């Protein structure tokens, strides 16, 4: 089973939920931190056996001796990664989306595959669990191929818990699109509610069932609960706002260590998620 934790709005508690849920898992799991621009899960986890693998993506390399400046590659590339200036064909690797169109169209076989490093995929263990995260090279713009690389490295013999990047555009989609269930974390504020509704629309568009976790819940503030019941989305868990939680988070501590009473809540959440998983499997 592959479960994503996503949110729309940033800073609502995706990573907090992911690391606490991972540490409360009833079986060995693999946590995938797919926020490759700003991966944070490893900051909260004591990891061992860290291994790094650089990850690259195709870029065109031009053989100027073979190139006849016919311009076919320049025409086919819709990302302006190949441009003829004067009597030279120039490649702009940072514009390339790796569609390989230029290589296919070149009649002279003057374009060969090169590589641009996107960043690293890092694998580590913690207890019986595994953690895999991506670390995008600073200055690189394109995160989806690295997000896919993190997922390719995941083992296929255990459940996967995936910490998604914020937003609702390509990076978030690349992270959640083949998940079985998505847990949407939000906070009871107008921003939290607005972005939650965008994330719900996204999950529905991708046909992935979802549930909601309210973080920093306050007594008497029911805007998220009201929305969930209106939209008929299961409310999975409420984590109350406590200044002590915020302070221990700031030091990189897990909630279940700060307040062991929460451990039961996370174990309960696993039960709900696994039950949902069984239902989904039965339905398909």
């Amino acid at each position, binding site marked *: 089973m592959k479960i994503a934790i996503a949110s729309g709005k940033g800073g609502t508690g995706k990573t907090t939920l992911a690391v606490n849920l991972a540490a409360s898992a009833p079986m060995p799991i693999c946590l995938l931190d797919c926020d490759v621009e700003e991966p944070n899960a490893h900051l909260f986890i004591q990891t061992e056996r860290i291994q790094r693998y650089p990850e690259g993506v195709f870029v065109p390399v031009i053989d100027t001796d073979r190139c006849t400046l016919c311009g076919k590659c320049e025409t086919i590339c819709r990302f302006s990664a190949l441009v003829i200036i004067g009597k030279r064909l120039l490649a702009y690797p940072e514009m390339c989306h790796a569609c390989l169109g230029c290589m296919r169209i070149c009649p002279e076989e003057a374009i060969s595959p090169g590589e641009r490093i996107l960043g690293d995929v890092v694998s580590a263990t913690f207890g019986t669990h595994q953690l895999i995260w991506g670390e995008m090279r600073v200055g690189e713009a394109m995160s989806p191929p690295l997000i896919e690389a993190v997922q390719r490295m995941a083992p296929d013999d255990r459940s996967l818990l995936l910490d998604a990047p914020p937003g609702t555009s390509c990076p978030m989609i690349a992270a959640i*699109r083949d998940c079985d269930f998505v847990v949407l974390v939000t906070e009871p504020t107008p921003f939290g509610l607005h972005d939650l509704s965008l994330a719900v629309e996204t999950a529905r568009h991708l046909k992935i069932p979802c549930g909601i976790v309210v973080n920093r819940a306050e007594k008497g503030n029911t805007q998220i609960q009201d929305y969930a019941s209106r939209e008929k989305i299961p409310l999975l868990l409420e984590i109350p706002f406590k200044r002590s939680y*915020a302070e221990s988070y700031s030091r990189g501590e897990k909630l279940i260590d700060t307040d062991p009473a929460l451990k039961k809540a996370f174990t309960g959440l696993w039960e709900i998620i696994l039950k949902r998983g069984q239902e989904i499997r039965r339905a398909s």
Partner: protein
Amino acid sequence: MKELVILSGKGGTGKTSISAAFAHLAPSRILVDADVDAANLHLVVPHKVFSSEPFSGGILPELDPTLCTDCGTCVEVCAFHAIKDAHPPEIDPVYCEGCGICHDFCPAGAIGLKPRISGTWFHSSTAEGPMLHAHLGIAEENSGKLVSMLRKRAGELGRQGGYPLILVDGPPGIGCPVIASLTGADLVLMVTEPTLSGRHDMLRLAKLCARMRIPVCLTLNKWDLNPEMTHTMEEEARNRGIEILTSIPFDTEMAKAMAAGRSLTEISSGPASQALMQLWQEVLGLLEKQQKSSDGGLLIMESLKQETIP
């Protein structure tokens, strides 16, 4: 005209709340919400939309089943696995990158290309000047292009209307839309929080700004949640040549302002609001210093400053 971009690396550190306060404190400015996939600024800045336009940042292939010979070429050439090997093949817009090579290589000419409408952008008016914001469609791409377009429009409007400042509320992260928000800006205000994650993400963003040669200043939001971490982060930032500005204390008034759909400085005179007013003056000072060095002492910023002293 100067352009100030508010960024954080980590999400949820207070970029939009601070942008809204600055938008209210500046008597004349253009406001841009560059977090196009989860735009929130319009929720706390009273405004009136006076035009909206579709945004097309790419193309989408469209297969004509009457022309398709079912040869499978499109399935084979698509590097993004966006074409399902059905009969006839099915194009999945969620996976499609918009490279168009399925169209180029289709021997039957069965695949056409149409512009992909990936969102809507709005030109709104507020008491202190125009606001440009957008809404990226569900599961759409090209947020970077949309951000660049909004900033370009803001620049045009600014020059026409003689606005002294463009204020950009940026997206989280350090990828495509952040780079699009930053390129060519005059000053970045990093808004972060004293947490391990905030620190990690701040350092990556600082590296990006340094690489792009854009001056950076820093404020720590909710600094009192961990004074020790605040101190460490300010030291680290200072060592990287980042200007350290007033930090903002944790204040429940912040959430109240958001719930009321207003900026904090409009409805509160509590400690966080006071800190924001101080921060605004400091940011203006930095922008002015740059103005003097780069434009030989134009004093437009000076007039801004006088009007907003609390």
